[in-house]
């Protein structure tokens, strides 16, 4: 996936001279995850810039650059280090189009490596998506596959709106038969995809939890459950129709994500599904999420992250007649 992300930026920069990559260590080093590897060499330091170490400054100057017609692609080094930039994000990035009645849209892509599962120390593993999805004006996407890493990042950079592009850290090293020479076309922002068809229940998920859900779906076959798995891909906008169609078909749903459950995206999704599928539901919509705790230390994270077992337990609870 890392390679697909790099390739997406490289292709965007080659095609459009207004695309600029900026952030901490993105130049010479190629980013701490090497996602910007080679870009400074190929396009020069003016197009791929090592900035001073200041997240508000990075995003704030990106606002000015976007005002002047550039398309900044900003890298926040880790999820929890994006927080100093929230003032800029919420007060300006998300609102500029609205404040100026459409006169000044900000085509900024904010790449945030997020989520746990890599044994990182504190402040390196937050699932911060709830903050972003609660902010009107932001588009929020998260790829779970290599194809999507490329396709969604290209679409994000091309978008005239600011996009928070959440990169699941633990999928950086995931591999696929993916050809950087002929990247497959994927649906753009705002479209969910059914990654596995099934008839007994729908798992609704995104980003780092997609592989976990697919694994759970395989394991559930032994229990006689045929699970459908929907990958949201885009949290805002939220592709309600794909989700609703799936749940109406299967009659049961579990939302799975790493972020805490209280006030997490799953709460919203469960509410929407309930509103629109009430008469089709055989059981309440359940959620399998991270605990409502600060992200735990590495040796405890396996207890926190929703895994296959918890998903299967939830699926078992969908036998509502009990």
């Amino acid at each position, binding site marked *: 996936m890392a390679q697909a992300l790099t390739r997406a930026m490289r292709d965007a920069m080659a095609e459009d001279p207004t695309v*600029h990559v900026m952030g901490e260590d993105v130049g010479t080093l190629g980013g701490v995850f090497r996602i910007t590897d080679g870009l400074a060499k190929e396009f020069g330091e*003016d197009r791929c810039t090592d*900035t*001073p170490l*200041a997240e*508000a*400054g990075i*995003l*704030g*100057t*990106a*606002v*000015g*650059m*976007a*005002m*002047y*017609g*550039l398309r*900044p692609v900003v890298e926040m080094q880790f999820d929890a280090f994006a927080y*100093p930039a929230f*003032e*800029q994000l919420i*007060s*300006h990035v998300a*609102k*500029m*189009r*609205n*404040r*100026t*009645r*459409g*006169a*000044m*849209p900000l085509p900024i892509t904010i790449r945030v490596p997020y989520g746990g599962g890599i044994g990182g120390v504190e402040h390196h593993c937050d699932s911060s998506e709830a903050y972003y999805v609660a902010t*009107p*004006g932001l*588009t929020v996407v998260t790829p779970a596959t290599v194809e999507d890493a490329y396709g969604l990042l290209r679409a994000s950079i091309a*978008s*005239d*709106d600011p996009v928070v592009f959440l990169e699941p850290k633990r999928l950086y090293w995931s591999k696929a038969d993916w050809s950087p020479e002929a990247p497959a076309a994927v649906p753009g922002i*705002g479209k969910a995809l059914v990654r596995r068809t099934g008839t007994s229940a729908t798992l609704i998920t995104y980003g780092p939890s997609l592989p976990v859900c697919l694994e759970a779906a395989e394991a559930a076959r032994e229990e006689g459950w045929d699970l459908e798995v929907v990958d949201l891909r885009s949290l*805002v*906008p*939220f592709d*309600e*129709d794909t989700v609703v169609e799936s749940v109406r078909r299967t009659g049961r749903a579990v939302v799975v994500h790493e972020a805490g459950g209280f006030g997490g995206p799953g709460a919203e999704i469960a509410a929407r599904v309930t509103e629109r599928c009430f008469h089709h539901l055989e059981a309440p919509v359940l959620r399998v999420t991270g605990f409502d705790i600060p992200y735990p230390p590495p040796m405890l994270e396996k207890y926190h992250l929703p895994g296959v077992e918890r998903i299967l337990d939830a699926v078992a609870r969908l036998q509502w007649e009990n």
Partner: protein
Amino acid sequence: MTVQELPGAGASHRSTPPPAWRPRTDAAPLLPDAEPYRVLGTEAADRLDPALMRRCYAELVRGRRYNAQATALTKQGRLAVYPSTVGQEACEIAAAMVLEEQDWLFPSYRDTLAAVARGLDPVQALTLLRGDWHTGYDPREHRIAPLSTPLATQLPHAVGLAHAARLRGDDVVALAMVGDGGTSEGDFHEALNFAAVWQAPVVFLVQNNGFAISVPLAKQTAAPTLAHKGVGYGMPGRLVDGNDIAAMHEVLSEAVRRARAGGGPTLIEAVTYRMEAHTNADDATRYRGDAEVEAWKAHDPIDLLERELTARGILDEAGITAARDEAEAMAASLRDGMNADPVVDPMDLFAHVYAEQTDRLREQAAMLRAELEAEDQA
């Protein structure tokens, strides 16, 4: 106890810096003068440009009238709130005057007068404060960024824009305005640092008007002056009398010239005073006395200039009357503009959130439309 007396602080612990280390610049040229720079009432006034000064005078009188009119509009309920710049007109106007057409102004919420002096229709400048929309103008058309309500957050925008313009080979300078209180915010420091590292063509203008709402400068900073803060980032700091429009014009022009020539950013502290309360909703008597306000009255920016220009024969009664007439005409048109009820469209709520409407917003828009239609029928 001195350092030498501390246990273990022997000579062997004192080391000379390693060979590669050296200070990057000579700090002296970056440091501000001890006293604010002044032109009016000094020998420097001998070189005043009469035509420029007559224009400054007319703008100052117009600016004062604009302040008075906007304050009157709050009393009539036509404006929700107005942060006055009475006493600070010289800063506001000089900031606008030194910019070329292609340059950008980044104002704070207080700086509507600077926007007006740059040529923006006063009604558009006041849209935010009237409440019909957040920004009442197209920023790109006027090259005036939206008035920033969160303090100091517009400063990194100015840096980014100026940097982008230079990358594209355009001759553009950004001038960003902030108050003394705003200099304590993190964004102020990040913006200065980025600007200096990138050598961006930016001018930072701090209007030190004595207070951040009720908090005096002494509780805001322990630096000798705010202009001193430039040296830490590697940019010159300039201290100037913010009520002396000739000095303001000169210092700002020099900084703009420097930025345009690739010399990098400048931090300018204009020492001025906010004659009125923070906004019409504030009670200034709770945090300052009349004596202080009276003392500043004797240093009024319009009086200072009028005295100098009349003494030198640059301005006469006819010139003064002409300036006042022009100001009255502006005030009348502002009144007319504001007395017309603003037309707002509730459906605009959903119009400018995303480039493409989301299903969610479409649904909510439909709900509101239905409510409005039901209301119409009732």
